[in-house]
C-alpha cells in the first residue's frame, strides 16, 4: 500500500543533510551561534506539535499539549535533581508519565467532540500550571532550577553519549540531540499513519458510526492516540527543561498550547510533516515581525488568519496536490 518513491527518498536525504550538516556549517561560517538555540527550540516544539497533529488525526482539537510538555519537564527535572537519575532515563520516563496521565484524562474527556473537547484541553494547561504551583515536589513558584546538564552514558564501559557538562559546545550537542529526536518522532509518526493504526484512525475520523459497525473499538483507539500524542509532548517538554536547566510553572502556558495547535493548522492537517513546517514558519515569523513593536501581534494575527482563510489545507498544500501525503 505504501510505496516510497525515489523522489521522497531524495527529499528525506536532502532534509537530513540540511539539518545535520548544512545548518552547522552555515552557522559556523556566519558566526550566528544564537541560531542554534532558535533551531533547537523549533525542533523541540515540532515534536510536541507532532503530538497535537496526531489528535487532529482522530478528529479532536487538542489545545492542551502545553500541559503534557510541562508534566514532562517536571518529571525529568525531579528525576534528575531529586532522584539523581541520568537525564537519558528521565527523558523516556517523562514521556511515559505524560502518556499515563493522558490515559486517565482521556478516559474522562475523549468522548467529547469539537468545541467541548477543545475547551477541556485548553483548561488542562492551566490546571497543570496551578498543580505545579501547589505541590511541594515541584517547588511551587520557585520551580526547579540548576538542573545539571545530561551526563554521559556508557554501556559495558564503552561511552555511547558524552557528558554534556564537559563539552566545549553544548549548544551544538543540544541541537543535534533535538534534531535526532525530531527525526525519530516524525519517522514514527509517518509509520504510524501509514500502518493499520493509522488506517483505523482515518476510518473513525471520517465516520465514527461506520467505523464501529465494522468492529473498530473507537474509545480504545482514541485513548491510545491521545497517549502517544502526550508522550511526544512530554519528551519535548523534558528536553526543553534540560536545555534551559530549569522548569517553572510558567514554562509552558496556555499560549504555548495554542501555538502547538496553530503550528498544525499552518503546516497542514493532511500532511504528516505539516506541523514541522508550521512550527518553523510560525517561530521565525514571530521573530521577523519583532521590528514592528506594538503592532507585532496585530500583523502576525492578520497573516495567520489570511493563511487559514486562503490555504485551509495548510502551507504544504501549495506544494502537493490534494490528498497527497509526503
Amino acid at each position, binding site marked *: *500500500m505504501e510505496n516510497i518513491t525515489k523522489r521522497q527518498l531524495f527529499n528525506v536525504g536532502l532534509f537530513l543533510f540540511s539539518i545535520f550538516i548544512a545548518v552547522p556549517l552555515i552557522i559556523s561560517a556566519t558566526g550566528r551561534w544564537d541560531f542554534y538555540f532558535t533551531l533547537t527550540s523549533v525542533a523541540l516544539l515540532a515534536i510536541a506539535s507532532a503530538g497535537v497533529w496526531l489528535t487532529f488525526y482522530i478528529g479532536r482539537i487538542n489545545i492542551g499539549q502545553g500541559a503534557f510538555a510541562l508534566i514532562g519537564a517536571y518529571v525529568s527535572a525531579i528525576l534528575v535533581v531529586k532522584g539523581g537519575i541520568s537525564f537519558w532515563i528521565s527523558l523516556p520516563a517523562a514521556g511515559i508519565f505524560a502518556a499515563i496521565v493522558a490515559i486517565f484524562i482521556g478516559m474522562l474527556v475523549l468522548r467529547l467532540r469539537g468545541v467541548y473537547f477543545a475547551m477541556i484541553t485548553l483548561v488542562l494547561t492551566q490546571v497543570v500550571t496551578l498543580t505545579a504551583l501547589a505541590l511541594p515536589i515541584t517547588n511551587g513558584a520557585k520551580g526547579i532550577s540548576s538542573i545539571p546538564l545530561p551526563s554521559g552514558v556508557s554501556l559495558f564501559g564503552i561511552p555511547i553519549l558524552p557528558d554534556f557538562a564537559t563539552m566545549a559546545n553544548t549548544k551544538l550537542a543540544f541541537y543535534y540531540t533535538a534534531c535526532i529526536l525530531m527525526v525519530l518522532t516524525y519517522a*514514527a509518526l509517518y*509509520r*504510524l499513519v501509514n*500502518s*493499520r*493504526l493509522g*488506517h*483505523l484512525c*482515518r*476510518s473513525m475520523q*471520517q*465516520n465514527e*458510526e*461506520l467505523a*464501529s*459497525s*465494522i*468492529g*473498530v*473499538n*473507537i474509545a480504545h483507539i482514541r485513548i491510545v492516540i491521545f497517549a502517544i500524542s502526550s508522550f511526544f509532548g512530554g519528551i519535548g517538554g523534558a528536553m526543553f527543561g534540560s536545555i534551559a536547566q530549569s522548569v517553572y510553572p510558567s514554562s509552558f502556558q496556555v499560549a504555548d498550547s495554542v501555538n502547538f495547535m496553530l503550528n498544525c493548522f499552518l503546516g497542514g492537517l493532511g500532511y504528516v510533516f505539516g506541523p514541522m513546517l508550521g512550527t518553523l514558519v510560525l517561530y521565525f515569523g514571530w521573530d521577523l515581525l519583532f521590528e514592528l513593536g506594538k503592532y507585532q501581534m496585530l500583523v502576525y494575527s492578520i497573516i495567520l488568519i489570511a493563511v487559514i482563510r486562503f490555504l485551509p489545507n495548510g502551507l504544504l498544500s501549495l506544494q502537493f496536490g490534494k*490528498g497527497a501525503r509526503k
Partner: protein
Amino acid sequence: MSPLLQVKNVTKRYGGLTANNNISFDVAENEILSVIGPNGAGKSTLFKMISSFVPTTSGEVLYRGERISNNKPHIVARKGIVRTFQETTIFKSMTVRESVIVAQHLRAKASLAGYFWGSRAAKADVAAFGQYADELLEFLGMSEISSELASNLPQGNLRALGIAIGLATDPKVLLLDEPFAGMNHDETMRMVDLVRSVRDERGVTVLLVEHDMPAVMTISDRILVLNFGEKIAEGTPSEIQNNDKVIEAYLGSSDDEIGM
C-alpha cells in the same frame, strides 16, 4: 435446531413515542428475513437494537443464546453481527478498495505494533487483505470502481459500497437497511441475486429492511411486518401478501408502495 438470532419482547421508547413495542421473532441460520412496514414503523430502530447501536428499553436480543443487545456496537460486530446504514454512510476520503481493506481489520493476525514495525505477519495480512478486497469487489461487480474515491460515487454505487464494507468484515449475520434504495429496476434485481449468493455461497444470514415490494417478495424466505411499532404479521411472502392486517396497514397509510 435452535434459532441463530432471537429477538425477545423488545421495546424501544423515545420519550413518549414507542418506536418498537414488545417485538419477538426468531431468525434461523442461513435465512433471508425481510422487515417491512410503512415509514416510521420502527424498522431501522429494530436493526439498531439488534446491532447495539441503541439500547433497548426492555427485552433482549440473543445470538446463539448469548445476549448481544445493550452492548457496544464494535463488540457485536466482532461477534459477526454487522449492519449497514439507511443514510449514506461511507469513508468519504477513502477509495472503494481502501474502504474494503480497512473493513477487514478484525481478521488481522499481526498486532498493531507488528504493523508499525512491519513484521512478517503484518506484511502477510496486508497482502491477504488486498487480495480479498479484489476478490470481493469482483464478486460484487465493483472492480471498475475500485480506485474511485467514495465521495465521488453515484447513489446506486454508494449502497453497494455499504454492502461491500459490511461483507468485508466476514459477518455471520448481515443487517441491510434499505439496500436497494436509489437503484433502478435492473440494478435492484442484480443486487437481489448478489444478496442471494452471499447467503448461498458465504453462509451469511441476512436481515433486510426494504420498501421495494417486488424485490422483497423475490428475495425473502420470510417477512416480518411492522406498523406503528407493533409486529402485525410474520410469514412467507405468499402468506404476507394475503394477510388482511398487512393489506389494511398499507392501504390505510398514504404509503401504497406495496405492489401486490
